[in-house]
């Protein structure tokens, strides 16, 4: 048993911290206000290796472990949830899915540029009427012999506009229900694909979210991932890993808010002393710190299990549900500690609070995580 991070893991944590505290912070408020995509930052993060953190170097990734990924996600998220969700989707949904389940040809053609961060990926699962219940895919991918013909609409797609590579989940054999679902890799510029308007979100505003419409879109047969009917299992497996990324994001939003609130409590005075000297504030900080520490331990444990090749689905569900829920609590308390200042944009915590809300919703709501956890208990 060992709670020490390795020298390398600490170096990655520090690199992410340096980039976030030095660069992302500069324009994060402005980008949030304008809902502006962080194009330049994504390029810089790619140069630093953050777009394919866990991908094997033979596919042009950085070859780091899941724990490093958690540490990097936490540091980026302390400052900017929008930038970190772009990183998370590319890493733990798209790159992971292709590396784990894609054919050699798919890895050569699609994974390599994604891992280098030259292009971005998006994961197209949710639909207007299939969110938590992902078995109810209305998007169809008809088998036409030498190609698939896709029709339907995908919703809430992160990176939809900036990505060039999509992983699409669609129904091929409706009679087989979820066992008829397939997963495909597809280029965004394929004829017949159109985007809905940019979603005007409450938080993560500089990430790029759209619906995506498919109208008689042809996908080559070789772009299917895995055997016929593997798509639902693929999506669930990929989301197991994706949850670690979002859990670490939620952790970062919470720990970022805690750091800011702690610094403020040491400076701001009320009733003749720093507000941290008032028990009402000190105990709030204490409660926040315990929650953050618990969330970090759950995230690192889930990543460690994954790194060890052990089952991690329940651990990642626990990490995601807990970290997301406490992110909401901790960021809300941080705003409270800052008082009126916390309610303004200048002090960052209101943005962290808006961003935290989404972590309870996307990549499996907190309620869905509880289903995963309780089903395992009651099995």
């Amino acid at each position, binding site marked *: 048993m060992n709670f020490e991070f390795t*020298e*390398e893991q*600490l*170096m*990655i944590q*520090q*690199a992410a911290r*340096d*980039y976030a505290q*030095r660069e992302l912070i500069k324009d994060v408020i402005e980008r949030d206000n304008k809902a502006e995509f962080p194009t330049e930052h994504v390029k810089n993060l790619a*140069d*630093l*290796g*953050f777009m394919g*953190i866990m991908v094997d*170097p033979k596919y042009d990734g*950085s*070859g*780091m472990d899941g724990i490093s990924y958690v540490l990097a996600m936490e540091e980026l998220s302390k400052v900017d949830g929008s930038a970190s969700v772009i990183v998370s989707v590319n890493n733990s949904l798209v790159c992971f899915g292709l590396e784990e389940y894609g054919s050699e040809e798919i890895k050569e053609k699609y994974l390599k540029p994604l891992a280098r961060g030259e292009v971005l990926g998006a994961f197209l699962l949710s639909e207007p009427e299939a969110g938590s219940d992902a078995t109810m895919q209305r998007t169809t991918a008809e088998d036409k012999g030498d190609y698939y013909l896709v029709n339907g609409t995908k919703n809430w797609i992160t990176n939809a506009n900036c990505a060039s590579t999509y992983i699409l989940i669609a129904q091929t054999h409706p009679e087989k229900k979820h066992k008829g679902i397939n997963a495909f890799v597809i280029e965004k510029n394929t004829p017949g694909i159109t985007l809905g308007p940019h979603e005007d979100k409450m938080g993560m505003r500089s990430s790029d979210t759209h619906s995506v419409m498919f109208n008689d879109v042809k996908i080559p047969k070789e772009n299917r991932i895995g055997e016929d009917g593997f798509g639902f299992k693929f999506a669930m497996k990929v989301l197991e890993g994706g949850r670690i990324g979002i859990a670490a994001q939620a952790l970062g939003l919470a720990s970022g808010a805690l750091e800011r609130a702690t610094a403020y409590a040491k400076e701001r005075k009320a009733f003749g002393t720093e507000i941290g000297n008032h028990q009402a504030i000190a105990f709030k900080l204490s409660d926040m710190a315990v929650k953050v520490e618990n969330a970090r331990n759950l995230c690192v444990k889930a990543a460690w299990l994954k790194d060890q090749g052990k089952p991690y689905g329940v651990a990642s569900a626990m990490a995601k549900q807990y970290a997301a829920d406490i992110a909401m609590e901790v960021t809300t308390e941080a705003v409270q500690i800052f008082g009126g200042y916390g309610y303004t944009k200048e002090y960052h915590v209101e943005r962290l609070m808006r961003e935290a809300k989404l972590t309870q919703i996307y990549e499996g709501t907190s309620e869905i995580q509880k289903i995963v956890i309780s089903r395992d208990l009651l099995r």
Partner: protein
Amino acid sequence: MKILVLIGNVPDTTTKIKFNADKTAFDASGVQWIINPWDELALTRAMELKEANAGKVESVVVANVGRAITEGTLRKALAVGADEAIRVDADPLDAFYVASQLAAVAKDYELVLAGIEAADYNSAAIGGMLAELLDRKSISAVSGIDFDGDSLKVSREIDGGSQSLKMELPLLAIVQKGIAKEPRIPAMRGIMMARKKPLNVLAPVEAETLTAYNSFEMPAPKAACKMINEEQAGDVIRLLHEEAKVL
């Protein structure tokens, strides 16, 4: 040209500084170590020179004097891009001792870069001492270095302006802020490659120390701030004299 960058291993700048019970030594327990910020800028500039002069700058090597605890700092320098690291396995007893150790290492390098001061004991002495020990030209307060493949163009801040000089190799340059824009963040590929790069541990040479530390003291804590409102403005002199006792 081969470049040697001297790397100080110093406490993270946010560290709470403590001393041992009799206040004769720094208490290093629980300290996170970093590359001395000026040295980190020097390393960044060395990497930029190497990248801009492919072939003409053969290698960038980093060196420090310290025990195994400093290897994390050297490994970070390798991750940033240095080709090789050298650690002289000794406690960095004082500036002269450290300079003497580095003199044994530095003679083979045409350009040696030293940060102008260190964020720990702040003696700002090693660079100058090392140049003397090497019997080599040195230039201090350098805020810019360019290399065209043959000679070095060096700029430095002087009182009320700046100076631009052409310098010949070999040279020891003592560099300050401005030498590089920002310290380079290591890319993950660099972090991964740092594992495989050589980190050579050398035995120290015989050298004397010229300094003994008698005691350390913390600066007095900031006194409470007393606000004086407009109506009391006339009392300022009296309060500075009677209460603050600075007049």
